[in-house]
């Protein structure tokens, strides 16, 4: 098995559409890394460059120690599962799976042996004589995985592998994929726009935006210590609340039109040392806002705007001036629009970002 290294990878389409912008990434042997980002952020283009389906405009791609920029896709020894599975509809499942071996002229008895092995591994011996049109989404997914693993590739590339499955199956398959990767020990790069999927499967996540990697880290790193405004807003569900504030040193408080929040001295010191100005953005995750029926010291009064009881929790929309904040409440929490809720921010978990650079200060 191998490492994958991207060095200053750039891909420009046409004259000025920069899909991937100077991306450098080191993926360790047997690691499961997820490229996470919204549509059009360059994650699939990065994956296609690694696969050899796109050639980089500049930069280098290494698979193991080999520079593969000029190596054709079929000689890179990578396997890819496409978003639509890309099964060939005119071929039976067994022909779909064994196609890579036939193309590499593997002897027939070896093909049969590996087909049997793969079918058993993916629990699909009964599907082999069907055609893709007769498969359910989950079965098609397994066939696509089978086709990818039968060659024992060095690197496994997954392009939105769960996007075409229904919600329930998605939860099941993400565990299956992770288990399969662990069993096979193959270096895996997965692309998704779904943060839950990314956080559930990945060893590390690279968050991409506008062709660049904004942050690389474990799921908890990204959740607890987002490095910039984009990552802070992208990771977490419901997304983080942002409040534009000014830091007033005399009061040791963050002041906005509707809020005056005293902050611990050490936070104030960090703002003073690291911020480019006193204009900052306060970030609070909905999970870090507690709701109280009665006023308590440091609590802020807000009007309940809407409530979404989700069973396991309740999401409460709170109106603070013109702003809407989201808070997560226990499932037993009861309130009605128009009520006043008293909210307290968990000061140990707030995030403060520089308004100008959008980088995290605290």
């Amino acid at each position, binding site marked *: 098995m191998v490492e994958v290294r991207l060095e200053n990878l750039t891909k420009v389409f046409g004259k000025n559409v920069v899909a991937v912008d100077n991306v450098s990434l080191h993926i360790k042997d047997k690691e499961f890394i997820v490229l996470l980002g919204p549509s059009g952020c360059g994650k699939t283009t990065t994956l296609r460059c690694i696969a050899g389906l796109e050639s980089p405009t500049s930069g280098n791609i290494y698979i193991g120690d080999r520079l593969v920029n000029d190596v054709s896709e079929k000689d890179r020894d990578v*396997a890819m599962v496409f978003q*639509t599975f890309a099964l*060939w509809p005119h071929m039976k499942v067994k022909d779909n799976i064994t196609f890579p071996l036939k193309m590499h002229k593997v002897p027939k008895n070896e093909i049969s042996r590996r087909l049997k092995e793969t079918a058993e591994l993916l629990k699909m011996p009964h599907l082999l004589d069907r055609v893709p049109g007769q498969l359910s989404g989950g079965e098609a997914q397994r066939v696509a995985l089978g086709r990818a693993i039968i060659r024992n590739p060095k690197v496994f590339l997954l392009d939105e592998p769960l996007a075409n499955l229904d919600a329930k199956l998605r939860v099941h398959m993400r565990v299956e994929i992770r288990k399969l990767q662990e069993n096979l020990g193959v270096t895996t790069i997965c692309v998704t726009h779904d943060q839950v999927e990314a956080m559930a499967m990945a060893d590390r996540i690279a968050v991409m935006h506008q062709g660049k990697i904004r942050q690389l880290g474990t799921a908890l790193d990204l959740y607890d210590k987002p490095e910039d405004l984009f990552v802070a807003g992208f990771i977490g569900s419901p997304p983080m609340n942002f409040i534009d504030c000014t830091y007033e040193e005399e009061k040791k408080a963050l002041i906005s039109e509707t809020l005056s929040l005293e902050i611990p001295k050490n936070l104030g010191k960090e703002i003073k040392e690291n911020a480019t100005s006193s204009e900052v953005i306060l970030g609070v995750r909905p999970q870090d806002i507690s709701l109280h029926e009665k006023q308590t010291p440091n609590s802020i009064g807000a009007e309940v705007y809407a409530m979404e009881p989700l069973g396991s929790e309740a999401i409460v929309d709170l109106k603070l001036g013109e702003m809407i904040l989201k808070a997560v409440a226990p499932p037993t929490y009861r309130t009605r629009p128009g009520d006043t809720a008293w909210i307290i921010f968990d000061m140990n978990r707030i995030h403060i970002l520089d308004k100008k650079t959008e980088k995290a200060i605290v």
Partner: protein
Amino acid sequence: MILVIGAISSLLPFYWLFISSLKRPAEILGRITTWWPNNPNFMNFVNALDFLRPSVPRAIVNSVIVTGSYTVLLLLCSSLTAYVLAKYMFRGGRLVFWIIISTMMLPGIITLIPSVMLMLWLGWLDTYWALIIPGAVNAFSVFLLRQYMITIPDEILDAARLYGCSEFGLFWRIMLPLCKPALASVGLINFVWNWNDLLWPLIVLRGNQDMWTMQLGLMGLWDVRGSLPALNLVAACTVYATLPLIILSLITSKYLIKAWTGLTYAKR
């Protein structure tokens, strides 16, 4: 209801041809129209075989050779052209496509004389080549196939490419099998067109009766006998001439329905 009227009006000429082939000459020319022969005479089909000799059996063989080769060659050349235009990005690709499409605007009659002169220059007059090669790529077929091929997701080809398939392999193993409905329609349309073509063979084969195709053979029935032939036998001969087309339509109907109910690739 409209479909029923359409179907009846399409089938009526065939029905009329068929019942005419079972009638006696007097009944065909008689003043009273009969919708079913008074005495259906199936022997007309046996007599027609005698009537056809000697020119028509040879003409059938010629037609089968010419139309068969033409259709196979056309499908191969047109699908290769369409594949490149649909799935490869290259400088000038769009221009090439529009040039090909623009040739559809030219009435065939305009290119007739230059084409005949070209055949003369190549020394292909009175040969099968003149009947097969000139139409082996036509803009209509390229257009139809290209439109179908661009609806096939690139991922399907990318997957094959990634798993070791050569560029020609992509075309042969993946693209062509997926284009069966479009190929069937294009093949049938061109088969019918070539099978029924009278003008081009008439010009390029000049007077060489050994090379005559089916349509020239049928036309020749009027001259060979020197007088008005028995219409029932002409009808029976025409049934024979139409039979291959009907059989082919039935064979390809599965694909035709798929193709004509929306000429796009659908995930199957």
